[in-house]
């Protein structure tokens, strides 16, 4: 049976402090890559579902992303079909 593979990226909201991103940017600069302007770090999920990648599957992943994978108080999410 077909397997749908959907990706979800969860990132901190832009105005929320991102200490991880700042630490990684600092390390990159110390390695001499000055042309890097900013780094933001978040979570990446790869979800496999039974069946094809149809609207239902995407709606389900969106619901999971909004309730479980992200904390709406400080995070936004993006759903992408791989």
């Amino acid at each position, binding site marked *: 049976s077909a397997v749908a593979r959907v990706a979800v990226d969860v990132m901190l909201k832009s*105005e*929320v402090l991102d200490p991880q991103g700042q630490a990684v940017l600092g390390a990159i600069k110390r390695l001499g890559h000055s042309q890097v302007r900013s780094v933001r770090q978040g979570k990446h999920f790869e979800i496999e579902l039974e069946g094809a990648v149809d609207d239902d599957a995407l709606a389900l992943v969106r619901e999971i992303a909004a309730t479980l994978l992200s904390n709406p108080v400080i995070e936004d999410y993006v759903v992408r079909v791989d």
Partner: protein
Amino acid sequence: MTDTVEQAVRTADLALPYRELGLTDDEFARICDILGRRPTSCELAMYSVLWSEHCSYKSSRVHLRQFAEKIPPSASGILLAGMGANAGVVDVGDGYAVTFKVESHNHPSFVEPYQGAATGVGGIVRDILAMGARPIAVMDSLRFGPLEAADTSRVLPGVVAGIGGYGNCLGLPNIGGEIAFDSCYAGNPLVNALCVGVLRRDAIQRAEAVGPGKAVVLFGARTGRDGIGGASVLASATFDENASHRRPSVQVGDPFTEKLLIECCLELFEAGVVDGIQDLGAAGLSCATAELASAGGAGMDVELDAVPLRDESLAPEEILMSESQERMCAIVKPQHLPRFFEICEKWDVPATVIGQVTDTGRLRVRWHGELVADVPPRSLAHEGPVYQRPMREPTDRMTLRASDPSTLPRPTTPDELRSTVLKLIASPDLADKTWATEQYDRYVLGNTVLAMPDDAGVLRLADDSRRGIALSLDGNGRFARLDPYLGAQLALCEAYRNVAVTGARPLAVTNCLNFGSPENPEVMWQFAEAVRGLADACVALDVPVTGGNVSFYNQTGDVPVHPTPVVGVLGVFDDVTTRVPIGFRHAGEVVVLLGETREEFGGSAWAHVVHGHLGGIPPRVDFDAERSLAALMNELSRRRLISSAHDVSDGGLSQALVESCLRWGQGVRVRLHG
């Protein structure tokens, strides 16, 4: 279009959204009186948050005065800095002083448990640092709704992980605290964090700006839109075009930056380049600058353009209100600035001069070269409104006291007694808390002598000294619900006894008073009684209060939490190797019960767990007995006559025996006379 002082004079009757910012009509009128004109939006933002209940203590000040009026005899000998300072400082001998304080971060921990609890730890640690001390340990007192409630499974893990995540990353051992559950805390978790620090007694830092020409330096993290709350209403009120995306956001902590801030501050103190310092907590920059200027009796000019921002679109009101974490404000002589910046550079801590101390007696704030605030700092920081809130005894007080628990059916057969004991030790409040406490690092810094599950956290003050301190953090909701006066005293007695049981001499007290809305007369009566009880008990036990915190508005709808005074007691060891842990260790040891047992079940764990009952009156308090027990324990431990000891409190003798057996896996045989 910025709302400047000049603008305020020209448009005197411009309507300002002061009610949305929590200010009453009278308070707004008083601000206009003080300024002789309508406030600018920046001034309104500053007054709205500095005159809030949280910062001004406007409903509690008249009652908290008792701690300064009823002074225990020992206070003058040991208190080096008292109520007014960020945190009280106590002389513990050998040239050492200790500063400690407990503060609440209840509401943010409900909104975002991890970050709420984490920034609670970060905030109290900065208070201790601002006194000039090296933070050496933290403790936490937590209260949640019922264990099986759905929302508890959201709040509880987040809070515990936040305290551990932040504290562990700072390198501060967690040496104790408590976790309790009650339906009244559903929707209103209580997250009280304590920090203790050590310093040389002659190295206390002051939170004051004295000496015109000195630099005002903001250092630590950059400023963002963290936890801005009302001010964003203001920012949009100034018809800013991209106000739409201005959502007040949660405070987020960065423990790594705070660790750098701690090391940096300690090196700055050591180098003698700091003349005054204040941490940025509630109300951020506006509170810090107002308090420094007001305490110094001087003036201060601040340039908001100089504040390093995380988000260039911040409006002046938001910069003043932002509660971005891990920031401090220092007063530095001009000639010390190069050395100051050099030390900050070493620790990768950004530092910027944002203003100057003046002798104008005014706090003046500029933005893009225009004067956006010109206020007398005392009116902001120390002369907020003071309310004598109406009080009324709770209507259910008499029926509650009349519901006598001694009529509740008790176990009569051995099997009934056995099942009662098992039910008690499995109840959420009394059950083992290792699943939470093992998420905290107790070993870092290498000076922890006792920690959970011992009765008090005990620390050695330095490698080359045997001087040590003990700390216990205890509170209760059920006793205080039955009788707030007695409940507050029982909370102090429990913390006092927990410290004494380890062999330490109890010295001083901090407290965090968690209550419902001060606008509810019954809550206000409970608060006044609790403060009166605590102040009287401090005199009776001769342990002065060095400072504390009040948290109001812990309620769902108009149903308040139990009145919950949380009390921290600090004790001292001349020789910390005499400390006494809990736990039966060697077979053949004799178990001795000290003190008198009375038939007292009001608010007890037994009545609560077995019968779901809350009524009657709490146990009697006997201060003389507490003091003689403490003296006895001190002598027994110094003569090394006992191998372990444990206080008898929640769950009574049964719980004390069970915990003593479980500690090292031993058994015990007990004969109950009579």
